[in-house]
């Protein structure tokens, strides 16, 4: 039953993403691309792009959109409920203990410990995203003949705009989308 599978996958994604929307990326990649085989690398990047472009929490956007891609409107609802469910339970439990004891040192200590691993996990999802943007896929071996040079230039421009002018993600997406629309239409 696809809806039950979808619900369980997204509960897992919600339950183990520590540190906001980007922390959900490696879990979405592992679960939806590798374990379940529901989406491709390209779709994964499209999901991320559209989630960045639209208002609202990125993880919720990504859940609704991928659920829709996998199993239609109901799939989108199920995925969204799934990714939210762990928060609804855990956050209220934490709040209960917090208001009662005013002390969550242990919880915060564990989160501190998780942070470096979360950075590494986002980096590993980043490798997939980067390679797919540059080569069209991320499977070894990568053939230099498949390298998209236009993509490298866009990537460099985007990185420059963010480091030098603190451009926001949405501005970057608009700029690179605009450049892509022009450049790729003419070559």
């Amino acid at each position, binding site marked *: 039953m696809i809806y039950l599978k979808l619900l369980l996958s997204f509960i897992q994604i919600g339950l183990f993403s520590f540190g906001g929307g980007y922390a959900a990326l490696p879990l979405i990649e592992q679960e939806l691309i590798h374990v379940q085989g529901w989406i491709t690398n390209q779709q994964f990047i499209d999901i991320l792009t559209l989630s960045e472009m639209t208002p609202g929490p990125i993880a919720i956007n990504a859940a609704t959109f991928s659920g829709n891609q996998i199993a239609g409107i109901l799939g989108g609802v199920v995925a969204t409920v799934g990714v939210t469910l762990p928060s609804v339970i855990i956050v209220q439990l934490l709040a209960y203990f917090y208001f009662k004891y005013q002390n969550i040192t242990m919880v915060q200590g564990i989160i501190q410990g998780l942070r470096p691993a979360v950075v590494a996990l986002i980096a590993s999802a*980043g490798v997939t995203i980067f390679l797919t943007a540059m080569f069209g896929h991320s499977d070894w071996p990568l053939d230099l003949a498949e390298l998209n040079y236009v993509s490298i230039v866009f990537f460099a421009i985007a990185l420059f705009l963010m480091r030098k002018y603190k451009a926001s993600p949405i501005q970057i997406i608009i700029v690179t989308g605009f450049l892509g629309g022009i450049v790729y239409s003419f070559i």
Partner: protein
Amino acid sequence: METMEKKTLFITLFKSTFFLSMFTFGGGYVIVPLMEKKFVNELGWIDEDEMLDLIALGQSAPGPIAVNTSILIGYRMAGVPGAMITVLGTILPPLMIMTALAYIYIAVRDNAIVNSVLLGMQAGVAAIIVNVVYNMGKRIVVQKKLIPIFVMIAALIAGIIYQVNILWLLLFSGIIGALTTIWKLRHEEDEEGKK
């Protein structure tokens, strides 16, 4: 009278979270400061210090931080029903927008121009993620603490080269976090004992 007030409270909670989620671009890190502005400065329902605690608490739990923070605000104002209302307010806008977008996407994905635009955006998104990782990684490195840097490098190797399951990596680093905290608490107790 009291039921009337409760109704207004629920409506305001829903409206505030719904509109913040509906019109704020940039995800949790942008939405949360706006929630703070709304509930601390505009409505005056929560004081600044308590709000900072709630934000820290929201980041200590798994899941999207905008959702977590909205649940905490709802819970703080009106218990479990309040939390249900704010979480609904936060997830409904994306649910509607992204569902509509999913259908548009299917209809136009194969269009040549749309394809060119999305191909361009791929490079942009790759740069955004590289930038995020750089900023987060830098924050860990500048602390110059051995254990977090070691955990980060170990997780990087295990995740990218050996493709170790993410859940094992999180469990492993969570245990290290717990042990360091216990060690630190003991250490502080000893220090206090000496005084």
